[in-house]
């Protein structure tokens, strides 16, 4: 193997550092016994991915990654975990009954990602994959190009994703509402019919 130039060493060490931060963080997420610390360890994972985008010249994607994943999704996860009881306890079980489905889903994701990387015609698109790490190419910052591609070439996946998000939102609202209705559903019908002003007012409200 020929000796690496300084430039190569720098590029490979940046890559190695980013990979270490991302993968190391991911391992800590799975291995942390306290729920809140697992959530905190997601931070280097998302930040590392943003670093990869930046490293590959995709400044726009990096900014969106930080804005959406770190600024919104992770924050909501931390928020939700803070509200649960025993968030900082370290005696929670590390595995549960979903282990096998989760492993299968993770394997499926690996297959999909590797498959996508293999079947993408990199060379036809003018990307030199052997030197991708060394010469990350022109920065892809043309935001209007990203928008046009999303709304023309990939319109269908885009719309499907928005329907999926809408469904998730409605599902969340239904779940959040259900708990409030539960007490009067649990009551026998006569009791609801009985002259209880509060129940009447309540059924009036929920109607």
């Amino acid at each position, binding site marked *: 193997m020929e000796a690496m130039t300084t430039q190569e060493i720098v590029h490979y060490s940046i890559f190695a550092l980013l990979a270490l931060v991302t993968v190391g963080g991911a391992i800590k997420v799975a291995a942390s016994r306290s729920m*809140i610390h697992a959530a*905190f360890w997601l*931070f280097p994972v998302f930040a590392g991915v943003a670093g990869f985008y930046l490293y590959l010249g995709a*400044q*726009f994607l990096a*900014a*969106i990654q*930080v*804005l959406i994943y*770190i*600024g*919104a999704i992770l*924050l*909501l996860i*931390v*928020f939700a975990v*803070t*509200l649960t009881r025993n968030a*900082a306890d370290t005696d929670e079980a590390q595995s549960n009954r979903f282990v096998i489905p989760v492993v299968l889903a993770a394997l499926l994701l690996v297959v999909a990602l590797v498959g996508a990387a293999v079947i993408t015609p990199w060379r036809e698109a003018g990307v030199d994959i052997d030197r991708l790490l060394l010469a990350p190419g022109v920065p892809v*910052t043309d*935001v209007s190009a990203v928008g046009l591609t999303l709304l023309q070439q990939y319109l269908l996946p885009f719309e499907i994703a928005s329907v999926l998000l809408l469904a998730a939102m409605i599902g969340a609202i239904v779940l959040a509402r259900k708990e409030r209705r539960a007490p009067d559903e649990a009551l026998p019908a006569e009791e609801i019919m009985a002259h209880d002003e509060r129940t009447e007012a309540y059924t009036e409200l929920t109607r």
Partner: protein
Amino acid sequence: MNELLRILLTVVGVLLGVMTLAPGLIWGERRLLALWQDRCGPNRVGPFGSLQLVADMIKILTKEDWIPPFADKPVFIIAPSIIVTATLSSFAVVVFAPGIAVADLNIGVLFFLAMSAMAVYSVALGGWASNNKYALLGSIRAVGQMLSYEVFMALSLMGVVALSGSFSFGDIVEAQRDLWFCVPQCLGLAVFFIAALAETRRVPLDLPEAESELVAGYHTEYSGMKFAMFFLGEYIGVTLNAVIIVALFFGGWHGPWLPPVVWFLLKTLAVIGLFVLIRASLPRPRYDQLMEFGWKALLPLALLNLLATGAIILARGG
């Protein structure tokens, strides 16, 4: 070598400028509040009390660096540094005058939004790590408030981005050569201004630290330099939002006669003065009122503004 020197000077200059303006603002605000509320304010240390800040710094730095035994120690220590780091790094993308910018990224506006999203962590983690019910309540309020208002903040800026066709601060200021964006984007400016108040957790929107209900909210357990970092973070945030408003809505460095940097500074000081005036005059709303106002008034307004801006650009054949 000359190029390197210029870059170094810009970086050091911006950092020094911000680090003087933000603490200076603490004194300036106390004096202005005193003036508007008919009180004396700090007037003993130095001429017009201007050395009050130095006295405060000495006191804060010599205080015991106390970490409560029930706190989550690493998180407790990291939390206050996040807000200072995140707000300070936002200044890197602002163009103060032609050629005076640390890094005029072509995703500048997005970078600012991403960094202000990071600042939320400081408050969220600080409140949680304190292991104190008032701190936790404060940080829960803060996350809800800042996460919601960030949405309106981002949406209100999209009109400006659409008009100038760029995310870069340099291009956006250049696009305002003939007409400042505060005229066509007055709705966006109003939404952004209110969102900026909520993002920096200033009176009247300081519900995360409402002292009449929550002791001091998320920083109840903090003291000494760690508290000072939260405090400084708030004032750097105010300076940052004033700078952003000037650059995106009030034509940045554009102005007759005076040199560009002076114009930028004067406009920034005027906007900061407005922030202080609002603090001096408005009462604090209830938390549910704040959320309702955001989602039921600001969100439709911001969307309407974006829709109208887009329609006008299309009609003009842009």
